[in-house]
């Protein structure tokens, strides 16, 4: 994962008269893209096998001439270079790999005519659905019809009629009329999801995408077929008819459902998130993400969202709640404990650690969440940021799923006050009797079973409403950004932590921004030395996790991740029922 690949074998190819050196075997569509030349295509996808059935990527192709008898290059006396033998018929670029001296032409009249012809055939039976089609605005057929089509239809016969609203599965709706038979979805289910459920039936214009008899497209990666569908044939049932994509602004984010940290994109308009799609990161999630992570945005506008700061269950202002929390911290400082979270960002975990230090090195835990890994993009560790807690020093060892030490400390009377960051203490192994002995400060976004009993409740922001970073299972530091504003009374977790630190220590703290926290992080955490918020690239930055190699991490193999074999791993706890499945949010 972190080793640099061996230097590739470069070959020079010529595209539209321009030479470019690319690794041998590079797909010619990708090679052309390096030169900024668009080779239109529908069925080709960089992360799937090539099927070459849409015929849109036709190019003229030529190879350097070699004398068949002598095997010597044939030189062109006019140019002094090796002559190029152009093939009489166009070839598809997607099925062509770079070989030395390969020439392609993408702008000749023949290719223009080819593209117009292919577009015309694709549009023969394509319905005029654009006004009601969710793909409009991000439709390859729409774009390429405008860029490479004839512009007018000559087709006067009635168009084919096919099923319009087939439920392929619980989350995917198929409009067969719009399908251009590119087979990307079939290849995805077969090759990536490894669950072969889709196929074509019937022939010619009547070809129809369908599930195998008795099967449905219900695996946890089904919505990726919607993402890769170049037209509006496969649509997300959740996003169907919700909003046109041209109104939506994208914000890069991270999937929080497990330690894989799949890169995502949030699509929002005017403070409302409409959908989450994967963002390409070839080191983490390629172009995929799990369906379960796509519905997490719904908790932003959930009815039960914590919006009101409370003290003893009574609504107060944010300042009053913070003052009450600081007072509690001061009065109970010798009996305090902190329950952080593996869902906090690195920055928040760092400040939580600072708070623990300020209180006098009080015990700080996070709650482990272990589920079943699916071997692809959901790992066994259902916390997105356990490694952040290790790196920032909030915890010293891999967290257990139950807070047994804290429970014992409460029973002993050593802990009488707990500040928890979104973790449900009852679900983490505490009993109601133990909870009754505690003064609880709760910082969180949604009510927990302990919220009613909490002394102070400070509403905070969800991952979609704030900036921060997570460290995933590869020790890859990845940023997420705020896409929408939070509720009026809720505060950024960083602001809450900074206010608590300021109130408790009485000294001014760095500003409650990720930039300011990173300035401190880089100073205090050796493996993050030299890192600034701005310098973390969009695809993440690997940090050195060697110091934690012996920790009993629970992740199994997933896409682009192989667990490091460690002797401690054999002794890893058996999986508990905590955090079963990503729906446990």
């Amino acid at each position, binding site marked *: 994962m972190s080793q640099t690949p061996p230097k590739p074998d470069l070959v020079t190819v010529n595209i539209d008269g321009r030479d470019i050196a690319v690794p041998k075997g590079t797909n010619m569509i990708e090679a052309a893209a390096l030169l900024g030349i668009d080779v239109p295509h529908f069925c080709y996808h960089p992360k799937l096998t090539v099927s070459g059935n849409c015929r849109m990527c036709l190019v003229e192709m030529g190879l350097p001439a070699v004398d068949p008898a002598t095997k010597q290059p044939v030189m062109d006396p006019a140019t002094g270079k090796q002559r190029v033998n152009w093939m009489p018929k166009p070839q598809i670029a997607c099925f062509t790999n770079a070989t030395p001296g390969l020439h392609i032409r993408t702008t000749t009249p023949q290719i223009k005519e080819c593209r117009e012809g292919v577009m015309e055939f694709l549009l023969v039976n394509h319905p005029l659905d654009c006004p009601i089609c969710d793909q*409009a605005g991000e439709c390859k057929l729409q774009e390429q019809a405008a860029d490479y089509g004839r512009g007018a239809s000559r087709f006067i016969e*009635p168009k*084919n*009629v*096919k099923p*319009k609203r087939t439920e392929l599965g619980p989350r995917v709706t198929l409009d067969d009329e719009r399908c251009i038979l590119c087979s990307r979805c079939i290849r995805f289910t077969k090759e990536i999801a490894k669950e072969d459920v889709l196929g074509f039936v*019937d022939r010619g214009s009547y070809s129809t995408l369908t599930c195998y008899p008795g099967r449905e497209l219900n695996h946890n990666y089904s919505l990726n077929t919607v993402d890769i569908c170049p037209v509006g044939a496969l649509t997300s049932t959740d996003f169907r*008819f919700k909003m*046109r994509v041209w109104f939506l602004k994208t914000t890069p984010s991270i999937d929080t459902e497990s330690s894989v940290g799949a890169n995502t994109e949030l699509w929002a308009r005017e403070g409302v998130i409409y959908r989450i799609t994967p963002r390409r990161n070839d080191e983490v999630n390629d172009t995929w993400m799990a369906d379960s992570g796509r519905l997490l945005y719904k908790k932003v506008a959930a009815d039960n969202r914590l919006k009101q700061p409370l003290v003893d269950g009574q609504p107060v202002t944010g300042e009053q709640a913070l003052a009450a929390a600081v007072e509690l911290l001061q009065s109970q400082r010798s009996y305090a404990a902190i329950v952080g979270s593996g869902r906090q960002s690195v920055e928040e975990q760092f400040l939580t650690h600072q708070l623990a230090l300020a209180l006098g090195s009080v015990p700080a835990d996070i709650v482990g969440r272990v589920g079943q890994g699916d071997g692809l993009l959901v790992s066994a560790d259902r916390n997105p940021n356990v490694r952040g807690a290790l790196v920032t020093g909030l915890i010293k060892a891999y967290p257990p799923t139950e807070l047994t030490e804290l429970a014992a400390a409460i029973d002993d009377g050593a802990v009488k006050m707990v500040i928890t960051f979104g973790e449900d203490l009852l679900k983490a192994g505490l009993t109601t009797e133990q909870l009754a002995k505690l003064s609880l400060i709760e910082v969180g976004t949604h009510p927990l079973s302990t919220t009613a009993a909490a002394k102070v409740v400070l509403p905070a922001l969800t991952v979609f409403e704030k900036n921060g970073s997570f460290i995933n299972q590869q020790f890859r530091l990845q940023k997420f950004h705020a896409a929408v504003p939070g509720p009026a009374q809720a505060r950024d977790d960083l602001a809450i932590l900074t206010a608590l630190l300021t109130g408790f220590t009485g000294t001014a703290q760095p500003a409650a921004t990720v930039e300011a926290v990173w300035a401190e992080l880089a100073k205090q955490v050796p493996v993050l030395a030299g890192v600034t918020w701005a310098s973390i690239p969009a695809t993440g930055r690997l940090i050195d996790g060697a110091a934690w190699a012996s920790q009993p991490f629970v992740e199994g193999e997933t896409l682009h991740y192989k667990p490091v074999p460690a002797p401690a791993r054999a002794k890893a706890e058996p999986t508990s029922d905590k955090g079963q499945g990503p729906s446990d949010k």
Partner: protein
Amino acid sequence: MLARQSPCAIRYQRVHFCLLHSDFFLPFLMPATVKVLERRPLSFLQRTYLPGVLAGMRTTLRHMVAPKITMEYPEQRPPIPAGYRGVPTLVKDPHGREKCVSCQLCEFVCPPKAIRIAPGAVDASGPNAHVEKAPKEFEIDMLRCIYCGLCQEVCPEEAIWLQNLYSLSGRTRSDFVHNKAKLYELGGTLPDTHFKWDKKKAAEEAGNAH
């Protein structure tokens, strides 16, 4: 800016700012071509004011007998020319189907952002299930609307029309936010030449035997 002014004007400005409003230098700075006129005395007839009065009365009398050109608005209304851009409305086709499919192109194109659409799905068991999509809510803020007609021009379903209505009244700001019901009430039914969706439904029902 200065280059466009006459040299004389520039000079005056300088005088104005530099010499502290002093009139002393003005005669020296004025152009040499200024001609001072003397007021001529009025004649006897002019002093009686009668020619002026009579000329005025002539205009008054001419208008007394001329045909009236004012209109008793609002009882009388002016004829509206073809292509007039009045209040935007939503229309139904002659079969009573709402034509808008909530593609939101009008919302996108609207320069003052007066249009707000909540898209929705058509009742799957109803007669128009094949249209699939229709607006759940459709609002046009007439305090924002600039009557440019781009919404009508962009509409792929010919569902939004700026018709003849030109005067709106209301007591509150919210009276000027036309919701879907109001827009259909104002729009009524317009003739259709395509019946695109009826053809689509007929094709769907006929199926494609193969």
